């Protein structure tokens, strides 16, 4: 059998996608849990299988990473509505000027996104500095009909929405869309009004049903909540390598670290 070829974390998605029949096969592990791939042997008994090696363990195993059902020590929950992070702050708190593109669902949008490796090796380099502005590929606005399956509030005060296709769609696919924490009034950010309105629409939905918006851990919604989302595209350079965003239960069906970030408008249906 061919020897396992070591690949770095960000190369795994590309490696998986290149294997015949594996790109969208159900039952695949989360991309960032893959440690190596042993390709099918040219002949013999090993020809029938590709072995995908992972670092996944049963949660009860000694040394298992923290996973579903095991919450580590979480940072304190953020207060107020202001953005409390720094990574790519300039992009997260701005809305592209591009004309909006309509997409029928998340999968249709994902198919138009530049490849992960291209963005990781982007020239000029995409940095995670607070001043890091949108690059050309991110200068897009989208409008999409989708469903919120899960959401959490991050310590930078962004709401992470795990947005997917219709629950009746044959291929489950999700991506992250974020309601940014707000820029401070004193910064006179031109996006403030839209960011504030989008965030208020999300909070109002929960207020109207007498429930709290999500906290640091993910809440899931069943059936998923139908929404129309408008926003700008964003490549999450901070998590392009290593652990990817998303709740462990859905991560294996989140093929990109591209996000809609910030959400500029949200309509609950």
């Amino acid at each position, binding site marked *: 059998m061919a020897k396992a070829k070591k690949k770095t974390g960000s190369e795994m998605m590309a490696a998986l996608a290149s294997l015949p029949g594996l790109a969208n096969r159900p039952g695949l592990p989360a991309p*960032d849990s893959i440690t190596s791939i042993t390709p099918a042997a040219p002949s013999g008994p090993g020809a029938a299988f590709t072995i995908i090696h992972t670092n996944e363990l049963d*949660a009860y195993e000694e040394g298992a*990473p*923290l996973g*579903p*059902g*095991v*919450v*580590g*020590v*979480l*940072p304190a929950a953020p207060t107020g509505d202001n953005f409390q992070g720094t990574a790519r702050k300039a992009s997260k708190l701005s809305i592209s000027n591009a004309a909006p593109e309509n997409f029928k669902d998340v999968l249709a949008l994902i198919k138009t996104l530049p490849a992960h490796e291209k963005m990781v090796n982007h020239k000029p380099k995409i940095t995670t500095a607070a001043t890091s502005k949108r690059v050309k590929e991110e200068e897009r606005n989208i409008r999409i009909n989708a*469903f919120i*399956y*899960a959401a*959490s509030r*991050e*310590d930078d005060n962004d709401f*992470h929405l795990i947005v*997917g296709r219709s*629950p009746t769609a044959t291929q*489950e696919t*999700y991506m992250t869309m974020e309601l940014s924490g707000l820029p401070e009034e004193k910064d006179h950010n031109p996006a403030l009004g839209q960011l504030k309105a989008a965030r208020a629409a999300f909070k109002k939905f929960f207020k*109207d*049903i*007498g*429930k709290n918006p999500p906290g*640091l*851990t*993910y*809440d*899931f*919604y*069943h*059936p*998923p*909540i139908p929404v129309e989302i408008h926003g700008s595209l964003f490549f999450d350079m901070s*998590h392009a390598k*290593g*652990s*990817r*965003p*998303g*709740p*462990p*239960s*859905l991560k294996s069906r989140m093929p990109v670290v591209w996000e809609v970030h910030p959400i500029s408008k949200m309509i609950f249906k």
Partner: protein
Amino acid sequence: MKTKTAGTKRTKKKKPASLDQLEPGMPAPDSVTGVEEVKTGKRTFQIIHTSEVDQYEQVAPKPPPKKRPRKSQTRKR
């Protein structure tokens, strides 16, 4: 003997039998910490609270303090 604590409410977050884990987009069963049923207009849906977080948000819990080996009180034979 059971005592009631004044001012505290028993949580309503129970895992209802109707939670269908086989539906797409559901969390892993052992991450579910509670379920609330919500009515909004004509629709009814469930908010399923979990212990799931983005992996990079997690900080490993402190390891338990190491036990010092006890001085042997048993007689050596």
